[in-house]
């Protein structure tokens, strides 16, 4: 009886979430499938496939997100591996230094990158965009991989070594496969925010390059709510698909928990 009653304590929050989490997503759906007059329509989606500029921005954003993810993986995996290897790194402070930038305002980090490029007299453009993206999201790749590697049972690698595998072989055949859950969650944590960023690209390229997030923002700002909602829905679908894909790539939730 008592426990029954105490579960009611979640009610205020359930109501709050119904209004501020669920209802807003329903609104996105409603706006996406309606025209300005409120009639049901698929026009917003048809418009997206017919507007060459938006479609191109969409594809270009996916391309940038993919490149960023690959670069982060190439730079981040060795770092995560070194951080988790007790022979090469013992300091918890170094680990913390890698994680802290995740929590610094993205805008401040982006403007700092712009400042760095100005300071080095390197012109802004696609190079700056990729640098800024990698700089912004690298910690999100390192952290989950580091977590998996850290939790990994080292005796597997030792056993492989004892059985005569070369260090390279141990790494490729034991360490890498065992770290795959972390790699998947890192890919997810880099790809998803990269594809949905806005404002970052314009600042890094002096408005030369536009990403899909900006297209959505501009439409919403210019009062094209229905079309903007449809674009947001398309982004949600892409993100949902990515999550499903990496879920089948292995349990993700565990790797992102722990130390914030």
């Amino acid at each position: 009886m008592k426990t029954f009653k105490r579960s009611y304590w979640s009610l205020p929050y359930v109501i709050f979430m119904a209004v501020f989490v669920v209802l807003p997503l329903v609104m996105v759906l409603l706006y996406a499938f309606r025209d300005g007059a409120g009639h049901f329509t698929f026009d917003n989606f048809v418009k997206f496939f017919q507007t060459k500029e938006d479609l191109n921005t969409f594809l270009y954003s996916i391309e940038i997100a993919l490149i960023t993810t690959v670069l982060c993986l190439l730079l981040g995996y060795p770092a995560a591996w070194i951080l988790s290897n007790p022979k090469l790194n013992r300091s918890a402070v170094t680990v913390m230094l890698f994680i802290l930038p995740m929590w610094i305002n993205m805008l401040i980090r982006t403007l700092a990158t712009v400042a760095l490029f100005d300071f080095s007299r390197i012109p802004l453009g696609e190079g700056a965009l990729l640098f800024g993206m990698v700089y912004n999201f690298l910690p999100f790749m390192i952290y989950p991989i580091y977590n998996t590697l850290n939790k990994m049972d080292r005796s597997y690698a030792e056993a492989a070594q004892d059985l005569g595998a070369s260090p390279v072989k141990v790494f490729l055949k034991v360490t890498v496969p065992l770290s795959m859950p972390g790699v998947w969650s890192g890919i997810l944590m880099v790809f998803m925010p990269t594809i949905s960023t806005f404002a970052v690209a314009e600042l890094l390229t002096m408005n030369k390059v536009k990403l899909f997030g900006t297209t959505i923002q501009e439409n919403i700002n210019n009062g094209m709510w229905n079309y903007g909602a449809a674009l947001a829905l398309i982004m949600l679908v892409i993100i949902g698909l990515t999550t499903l894909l990496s879920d089948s790539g292995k349990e993700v939730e565990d790797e992102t928990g722990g130390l914030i």
Partner: protein
Amino acid sequence: MKKFFAQAYLWLLLLLLYSPILIIAIFSFTEAKVLGNWTGFSLDLYRNLFEGGVSNAMLRSVENTLTIGILAAILSTILGSIAAIGIHNLKGRTRQAVTFVNDIPMLNPDIITGISLFLLFVGLGVTQGYTTVLLAHVTFCTPYVVLSVMPKLQQMNPNIYEAALDLGATPSQALWKVIVPQIKPGMISGFILAFTLSIDDFAVTLFTKGNQGLETLSTFIYADARKGGLTPELRPLMTVVFLVVLILLAVINIRTMKSNKNKK
């Protein structure tokens, strides 16, 4: 030798990660209008910042950021702690459903959270401003409070609450004297986390701030950067914000590490 290369790689990456912030911090100690121009050491920008030599709009944006951050942290800590106690006592499907919805704001990209709330407010005909920004911040902060408080409830011995009731405490006494002290560390971590998330937010604020001229630090910086060239006083300001966030995060992490050690 191997260790040397490994360490060198780590520090090179760290240099890459921190160099932009370092540049801003270094050039906050010189007066030059254009960043990258060193015109000698000076604390003038800091003096302007703290003695009101900067535009009113900028000061007001800092004020808004702080008050929204504190209010959002207080509200989401209260809402989230109560919710956590409730969810802790939920079972089966209902619990799964509530936890799932609780995860949505954390998984959703900022832009989706922002747009969906924007559409909610315009759909309901609500004028957007301070209150809508605050509500939006509570929306994306509370899930993190719930997640900070839940583990403390799980560690708690459920019998001590019952024991307090058996010994004659009223339910509200048992709550204040037994449950709250037990989950307090989680509430404090959740509060700091919520505050950090709130002052860090840009995207959600941008969509929910309306057009009545409300700016937080992030949106002010964004508008300033779009106009071309940053106001020099933003350099010391960003440096201070960076330091504050670093210290807050170091505090949370040390707390987590300590409580993990205690568990062991």
